[in-house]
């Protein structure tokens, strides 16, 4: 102990500065926990309720002792087939399309910006300013005339359009992070546009693409408004399945909770997988 330098030892003593430092850290810790729990509690509530028998789910005050049952889940799995299929097709299909269209668009707006790239960028994001409810009428008519009403293609197209602006903005910001020297090196090496994107830019922005894809998946998977208004049976998605879990009469809270739990699992799994690539630093080792 005697080898500890004087300064180091002094800083361990509880001076007023030190007290403020600790209380500050504890204070932020408490805030973080409160916010975290506030977000998590409803989810926990949903999961617990999903395992309750219907009769125990709607008591007040809530009961925490009950005999858990998976009968609600059994019910969910007996009816979710077509819904989950539609959701997967619409989500995966639209996300792939978004990436296929978003990468070239972002490239043209960042690495080698086209003329009026600012206007283009603004136009993309401006499409998100209009409330979707304002266009549902025209959309319905268009879908009707093009025979796409209640078709999975319609959802793929709409979800692509819905997610594309955000995706372009995100991918563009990742592409701007690619060091300009790397692009110049590839230019000197004689790589054309396609090679430049495929061999230099894409490997570097891959973590960014993963997070973009994740956001698109979440938005498409959870989308209800368009699905509700433009589909009935042939393309009904998981959010619609949740609605259909609410019967006209009788108790339904436990059943709805089970359905909601099942519906959130894919998003959580995708998020968990993508997390690793999300935290991986962009362009690690590219410079120096």
């Amino acid at each position: 102990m005697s080898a500890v330098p004087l300064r180091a030892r002094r800083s361990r003593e509880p001076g007023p500065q030190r007290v403020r430092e600790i209380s500050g850290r504890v204070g932020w810790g408490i805030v973080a926990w409160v916010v975290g729990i506030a977000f998590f509690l409803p989810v926990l509530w949903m999961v617990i309720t999903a395992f309750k028998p219907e009769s125990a789910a709607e008591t007040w005050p809530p009961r925490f002792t009950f005999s858990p049952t998976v009968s609600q889940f059994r019910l969910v799995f007996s009816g979710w087939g077509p819904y989950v299929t539609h959701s997967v097709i619409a989500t995966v299909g639209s996300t792939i399309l978004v990436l296929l269209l978003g990468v070239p668009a972002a490239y043209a707006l960042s690495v080698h910006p086209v003329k009026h790239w600012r206007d283009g960028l603004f136009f993309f994001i401006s499409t998100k300013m209009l409330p979707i409810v304002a266009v549902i009428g025209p959309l319905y008519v268009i879908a009707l005339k093009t025979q796409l009403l209640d078709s999975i293609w319609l959802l793929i197209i709409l979800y692509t359009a819905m997610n594309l602006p955000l995706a372009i903005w995100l991918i563009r910001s990742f592409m701007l992070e690619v060091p300009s020297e790397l692009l110049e090196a590839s230019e000197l090496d004689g790589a054309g546009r396609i090679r430049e994107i495929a061999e230099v830019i894409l490997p570097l922005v891959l973590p960014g693409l993963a997070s973009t894809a994740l956001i698109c998946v979440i938005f498409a998977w959870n989308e209800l408004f368009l699905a509700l208004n433009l589909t009935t049976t042939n393309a009904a998605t998981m959010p619609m399945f949740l609605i259909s879990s609410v019967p006209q009469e009788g108790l339904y809270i436990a059943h709805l909770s089970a359905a909601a739990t099942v519906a959130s699992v894919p998003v959580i799994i995708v998020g968990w997988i993508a997390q690793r690539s999300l935290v991986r630093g962009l362009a690690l080792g590219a410079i120096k």
Partner: protein
Amino acid sequence: MAQVRYVDATRVYAKGTPPAVDALDLEVKDGEFMVLVGPSGSGKTTALRMLAGLEPLDGGRVEIGEKDVTWVPPKDRDIALVFQNYALYPNKTVAENMGFALKMQHVPKDERDRRVREAARLLDLDEQLLSRKPKQLSGGQRQRVATGRAIVRQPRVFLMDEPLSNLDAKLRVQTRSQLAELQRRLGITTVYVTHDQTEAMTMGHRVAVLSSGKLQQVDTPRQLYDNPVNQFVAGFIGSPSMNLQTVPLTDGGARLAGKVLPLPAAVRTAASQAGLRELVLGIRPEHLHLADGTGELTGEVILVEDLGSDALLHVRLTGQADQVVARAEGRTPPGPGQPVTFHVQPDDVFAFHPVTGTRLAG
């Protein structure tokens, strides 16, 4: 292999601002190692990028091998550039990095491998390293890979943009000589940019000194040192730099530290023709010879920097505001606070115009 020529080459970044490179006229001979040196903002990197094709010209032209390449895209100029931060592709292995340009030229894989291996051997890069990624390499290894990527292409001109600035001091000195030796062996025309005058002096066959976008002087290192054409070159080349003092003119010489320093007749004539009342005197640190009380310049030692082999004396000359630096023998330098006198040979004194900075009667 080829010669390189800048003819009136100009680059203006934004309208209304002074040109980054201003009407540059420079010829690099076939096989020559040309160093562009200057402080930051002097336009040396811009000049290199103009030659690489990464920067368009706003005037004049650039020639490689007597062919105007001003509007030729970079990949068709038959050049290779080593970047300051190496710009290695992080997702590719060392071998892929080095062979990428060849792959783009559709060189068969066997030939590519052979040339990559050959370059690796030339640079003392271990074969095992070829399958590693750049981030698994040390700074020195990355530097060699970046150089290797340039060699593999067998270009007509090598361009290097401060390739040693990310290395630590010791490695920099080592790599410096290796690069110079490599260039000598390959005999490829090289344009090398640095802000470090020591690098410029030690590596270049000839050195081009730039300042504020203008070429100041281009010559061999020895000539730059012995015969700088103006005050900027005189102050920039040499370490520690030349002592420059603005002093009044008197009959037969210039007044410095209360004494009249005799000036050559040619200088005096030039000064009187220009109607000057004062001029800038330049004396290199090694030309201030310590003299035991018998020297013409007197002063007081402020600080001593002992470098081992010799010592740098920071001295305030009597009656002068600025300090001068003198190089003294290392074993027995005078201590701080001690009075000293210096002897100066009139031939060793440079004289510059106080306004324009041009050398008077060089």
